[in-house]
């Protein structure tokens, strides 16, 4: 067992894990934070996306011990009480989810797009940046719209 110290959604945590524990399993199994999903466990789908030291990463392909000293953010850290994060609200407003399985990973990837690129984004950038996130329901159009909406880049019906 190794003790990993990291910050999760602003809280400092110390967690004992086996060295072979994946970061996503530290979240889901050890800490009971089941918002982060496992879709494939083979680094393909992005459902497990979290933000590690400011970068969107697939937590099914990182060891928990590799997150020593890191600052980690997950879907649970976005809303402020009952008030959704603007990206979560935009997903609701734009009908960007159906079954919702991919949504935690999509939203973390989307939040990180805005963090890294600011609001100076367009549709092709959003599509390229979401290549690592698969959705079997929506067909992606409304997800892309939601991200553009947060950036204020969505043409309004009245315009």
């Amino acid at each position, binding site marked *: 067992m*190794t003790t990993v110290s990291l910050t999760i959604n602003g809280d400092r945590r110390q967690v004992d894990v*086996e*060295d*072979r524990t*994946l970061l996503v399993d530290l979240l889901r199994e050890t800490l009971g934070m089941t918002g982060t999903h496992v879709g494939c*466990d*083979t*680094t*393909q789908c*992005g459902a497990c*996306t979290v933000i590690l030291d400011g*970068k*969107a*990463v*697939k937590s099914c*392909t*990182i*060891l928990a*011990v*590799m997150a*020593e000293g890191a600052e980690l953010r997950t879907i649970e850290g976005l809303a402020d009480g009952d008030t959704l994060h603007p990206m979560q609200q935009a997903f609701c407003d734009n009908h960007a989810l159906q079954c919702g399985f991919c949504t935690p990973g999509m939203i973390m*990837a989307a939040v990180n797009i805005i963090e890294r690129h600011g609001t100076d984004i367009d549709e092709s950038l959003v599509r390229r*940046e979401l*290549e*690592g*996130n698969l959705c079997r329901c929506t067909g992606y159009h409304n997800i892309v719209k939601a991200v553009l909406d947060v950036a204020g880049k969505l043409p309004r019906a009245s315009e």
Partner: protein
Amino acid sequence: MMYAFSYHAPISLSEARKRFEESEDAAYISGGHTLLPTMKNRLAAPSDLVSLGQIEELQGIAVAEGCLTIGAAETHASVAASDAVTGRIPALAGLAGSIGDVQVRHRGTIGGSVANNDPAADYPSAVLALDARLHTSERVIEASDFFQGVYTTALEPGEILTKVGFRIPDTAGYAKMRNPASRYALAAAFVARFGDSVRVAITGASEDGVFRWTEAEERLSKDFSAGALAGLTLNEADMNEDIHASRGYRAHLAALCTRKAVELQGRLTLL
């Protein structure tokens, strides 16, 4: 679940080497984006994982004396975004930015990619075409001696790749046909010009991994134009075949990528 192992995070090259030698059956881990999937499938079961992520000697991107040197632990995302790389060899920055997806690029490293020598990986083509020197914990290896067939390199057990020194060309271009699911290369060509000499490296296509297409190099050295390649084909029998593409299709794609990389120098082209 992966088999159990012990994880170590040394902060110096010598400590990492020592840890490797002292372990029963150690493996180095850099970004882990090739190794961890392999371990999850239980195709690898090292007793110890020695992380290369905290070692300063493996970090940094620098330009000196006609050479662009990239630390083995630099991620694909940092290479793609580096001013030194986009300024000196934009096709190389484009190559790094074409690997996998943004999450993969945030973790995967140039050292892991080059050491792994996957037949569909992108970096090996740049290493060969840009006549790179591979710096290791023990020595310097020339690109022409480094790749020794699929998943095989000149690295000895325990030897650590520390830096890749690319010769800065006059111009270079990289053209790639991506597997739409994984975004690995179905076939790709890196074409670099050094004065009158031209180097062409093909990845993704051959059964034996990355290779230099010398016939194309000869023609391009006399006449650097896509037209100079007219009628030149690769031997289908040497190409790889799998569920994604037949031998014939790969031979066609590799030749097409080469022409595109000649036409569109100074950048990445996705077909």
